[in-house]
């Protein structure tokens, strides 16, 4: 085991698509008593890898306080620039399933679900489940996730498991207290579950060998844009520039945290909550989109805002009306329109924020604000009728 501990440093180097290889590489499910797992996760400092970054031990503790709990592994990946959950599910389904079983054990779950996109991810998971019927303490029901952006929002996941359309819903109680049919429900991203399994195997000290003291461990990140698209596993705190070292052009900025994220123009910024919070950002679900210095950031921002407006579930008035207005404003701004447009975009962003059943308007507002702040020079250029993009205006 000791040799193994030193060889394995994260998730991708422990990945094995089939049970025989998984068993040889990782050993059996490291069953725990519930209290042990919560303590280990707390000591490890594992936070959710689905976007919100909440401490995992705390969520599990809350769910464990209730009865007849439901556990859901969330593999929905509606973010167009994210491939990490898909990659993990296809390359290491057993790591995710081990973590799902351990989480179920920890909260004494009555039902266990895995919510994954239809296609290769669902196929890999179903094949893996068929291999491990003798391993698992709890049967796992696979629920397929639609491909749209908000399908992975927590209340949409709960709705899908309840057999309703996978749309965000109004919630009066937190999901860990009252989720699926009012029962305590743990919704945890699939990468988080895989880390949980490895922490149970190798211990908190092993997990803390990578990352920073405050934010330990590795995370999966999907890089794209001006660098070749791919999924990597890196320690928390890695400088943005190091992650994007493969760029062959000069970089203007990178969108960190996906379409709900924040532009970061200082490439020496470490990818950690501590470094990103002061600039209004977060690692989110590990999406980094590089923008080179020959493409127009404002046009990219307008494209993303239009996409986000189109992904509104159209259930909540402020999102249904406000996001298209925001998209039109950002588009007019990219097209070189009037001097009042940045202020109008800012006001619309403020207006939609916190006024919806899910985080979609808030994420869109954050993205727009960040675009206005980081591309101020570009806004001025557009108003003079020029643009940084050589092929553009």
């Amino acid at each position: 085991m000791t040799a193994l501990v030193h060889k394995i440093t994260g998730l991708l180097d422990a990945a094995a698509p089939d049970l025989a290889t998984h068993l040889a590489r990782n050993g059996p499910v490291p069953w725990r008593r519930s209290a042990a797992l919560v303590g280990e996760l707390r000591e490890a400092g594992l936070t959710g890898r689905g976007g919100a970054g909440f401490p995992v031990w705390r969520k599990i503790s809350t769910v464990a306080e209730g009865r007849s709990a439901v556990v859901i592994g969330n593999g929905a990946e509606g973010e167009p620039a994210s491939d990490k959950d898909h990659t993990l599910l296809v390359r290491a389904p057993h790591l995710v399933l081990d973590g799902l079983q351990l989480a179920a054990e920890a909260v004494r779950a009555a039902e266990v679900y895995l919510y994954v996109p239809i296609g290769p991810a669902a196929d890999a998971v179903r094949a893996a489940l068929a291999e491990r019927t003798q391993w698992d303490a709890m049967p796992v029901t696979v629920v397929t996730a639609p491909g749209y952006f908000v399908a992975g929002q927590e209340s949409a996941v709960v709705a899908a498991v309840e057999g309703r359309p996978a749309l965000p819903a109004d919630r009066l109680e937190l999901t860990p207290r009252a989720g699926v049919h009012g029962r305590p429900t743990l919704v945890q991203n699939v990468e988080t579950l895989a880390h949980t399994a490895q922490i149970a195997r190798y211990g908190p000290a092993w997990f803390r060998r990578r990352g920073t003291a405050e934010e330990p461990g590795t995370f999966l990140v999907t890089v794209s844009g001006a660098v070749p698209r791919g999924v990597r596993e890196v320690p928390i705190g890695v400088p943005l520039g190091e992650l994007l070292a493969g760029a062959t052009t000069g970089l203007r900025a990178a969108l960190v945290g996906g379409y709900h994220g924040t532009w970061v123009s200082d490439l020496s910024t470490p990818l950690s909550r501590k470094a990103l919070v002061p600039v209004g950002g977060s690692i989110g679900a590990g999406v980094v989109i590089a923008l080179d210095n020959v493409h127009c950031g404002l046009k990219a921002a307008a494209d993303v805002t239009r996409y986000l407006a189109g992904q509104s579930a159209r259930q909540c008035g402020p999102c249904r009306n406000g996001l298209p207005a925001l998209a039109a404003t950002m588009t007019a701004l990219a097209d070189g329109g009037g001097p009042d447009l940045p202020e109008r975009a800012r006001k619309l962003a403020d207006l939609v924020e916190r006024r919806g059943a899910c985080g979609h308007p808030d994420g869109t507002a954050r993205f727009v604000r960040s675009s206005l702040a980081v591309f101020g020079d570009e806004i001025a250029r557009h108003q003079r009728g020029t643009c940084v993009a050589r092929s553009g205006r």
Partner: protein
Amino acid sequence: MRLHIDWTACDGRGLCTELLPEVLAHDPWGFPVPRDGAREPAIHPELRAHAERAVRLCPTLALRLRETS
């Protein structure tokens, strides 16, 4: 005490913004905007009766009063 708005139910009829102008403004599309900027705007005790009336009269039953602990 706080006012919970179910945005998936709200239709922007605007009754609440008329009954609770101290708490709610409205946006260009007629949907309520909490003046305090909170997700669930605070309701002062003296506005409780008005808030209860807004909850009762909302045509889409989108409002709920929540005791704050």
